[in-house]
């Protein structure tokens, strides 16, 4: 520990480099946050240097509240099967983020969907997956129930 005292000049240089690197990287997120957001690379890429954009999106009266998405599978016979999030073996946040990626058309999320359906619904012959919104709407007096409608459909590749 007392090595710090013996080599104080070198120590101060090391500390200075450390401080400048970390604080500089974190400060740069203030300048480049716009760029990072636009490129869709916001997130964990540079963790533990982060853009602290939690709860940053403005919301308005009438917005449907994204508590989580509801899923339904359509079989090759046309039968509609509800797919509860618990049945997919994902934790809450993994489910929320995967389903959000799915709705945004992310190709990797479609691959994950195929894997999940293969692992957890092997006996079903799903041809389509439907994503429905959570049935809550925002008003100035809080949330009111609303209809849950299909907001996204995706064809399910053969996974047997």
């Amino acid at each position, binding site marked *: 520990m007392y090595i710090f005292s013996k080599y104080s000049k070198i120590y101060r240089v*090391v500390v200075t480099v450390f401080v400048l690197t970390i604080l500089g990287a974190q400060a740069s997120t*203030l300048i480049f946050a716009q760029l990072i957001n636009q490129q869709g690379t916001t997130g964990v890429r540079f963790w*533990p240097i982060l853009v602290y*954009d939690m709860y940053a999106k403005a919301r308005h009266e009438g917005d449907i509240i994204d508590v989580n998405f509801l899923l339904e599978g359509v079989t090759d016979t046309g039968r509609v099967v509800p797919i509860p999030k618990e049945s997919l073996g994902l934790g809450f946040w*993994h489910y929320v983020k995967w389903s959000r990626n799915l709705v945004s058309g992310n190709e990797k999320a479609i691959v994950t969907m195929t894997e999940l359906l293969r692992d957890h619904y092997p006996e079903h012959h799903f041809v389509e997956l439907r994503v429905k919104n959570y049935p809550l709407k925002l008003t100035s007096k*809080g*949330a009111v129930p609303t209809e849950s409608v299909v907001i996204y459909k995706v064809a399910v590749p053969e996974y047997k």
Partner: protein
Amino acid sequence: MNIVGGWRKFWFSDGSYFDLAIVRIMAVGLQCYVLLLAGPGAYDSLASLPSSLYHPIPILRVLMFPFVGADIVRPDTALLVQCYWITLLAGFAGLAGFATNLSLLVFAVGNIFLQSYSYSFQDYHHPDAIMMVALCALALAPCGRVLSMDSILNAQRHRANGVTVSLLDYKGSDATWAIKFIQCFFSLMYLSAVASKFIVSGLDWANGYTLQYYYVQDGTRWESSLGLWASQHHFLVFLSQWVVLLFQATYFLIIFFPKLRWFYLPVGLCFHIGIYLTLRAPFPEWMIFYAAYIPWTAAFKLFSNMRIKVPTISSPRVS
């Protein structure tokens, strides 16, 4: 004063080792608790996730590079569990102040490895980044100089030729920077939070509906009746959104005017406790690092020198 002189004065002026040790104990103690709470079983549930969800983040790749090269391999659960126990052991050693800097270095790297692995499944959260960064700073700082096994062992070693100094008066020029670093990093986090709101939404963010929305969203997800209650009061929420913006945008002033901490710290604590009670979003790391702003040495001196009036004893007690 030139830039180098100013830099030296800011980062390397005399500071108390006691303050630094308190921050070490609180930070490492919390992180050990977080690790114990998660348990080694957390890696079993991650192992069961589909491989298509796994996209190792750069820092995980860097840490794994010496072992697997550029391959995107998924570390097996046994390795993660071993790493978990080594990290926890290092944490307890760091907490006790045994081989403090080495222990904290292992603890920091272990935590970064484990956390970056769990964040490689397209899910991450904001609270723990400051802990990782602060652990690295503490591993570099002389935070085991007092309140540690190292200090006891060192005192025994130098019993014959050492000088004695009061614990609270033990100061050094290398004791300040880590605390100031955490303070500055904290300010940048809040600035990032307010900048993100302006970049993503502009002033429209503070329209009242935004926070109402999040109260309903998280209140429903985590069954927070307080969050759902708060979501019904538009004007109150509107006002609190402006308070949040002002708080986050001006928090950095605490660096230049330390007395402001007596305003910002209680407000910040209420702010994070409120977030937890309504949105069920825990930020324990952020709350614990408020400790970096407290002048512990001065507070202990104040209390130890405080004189109180006691009632006069009419007849002396006989034991």
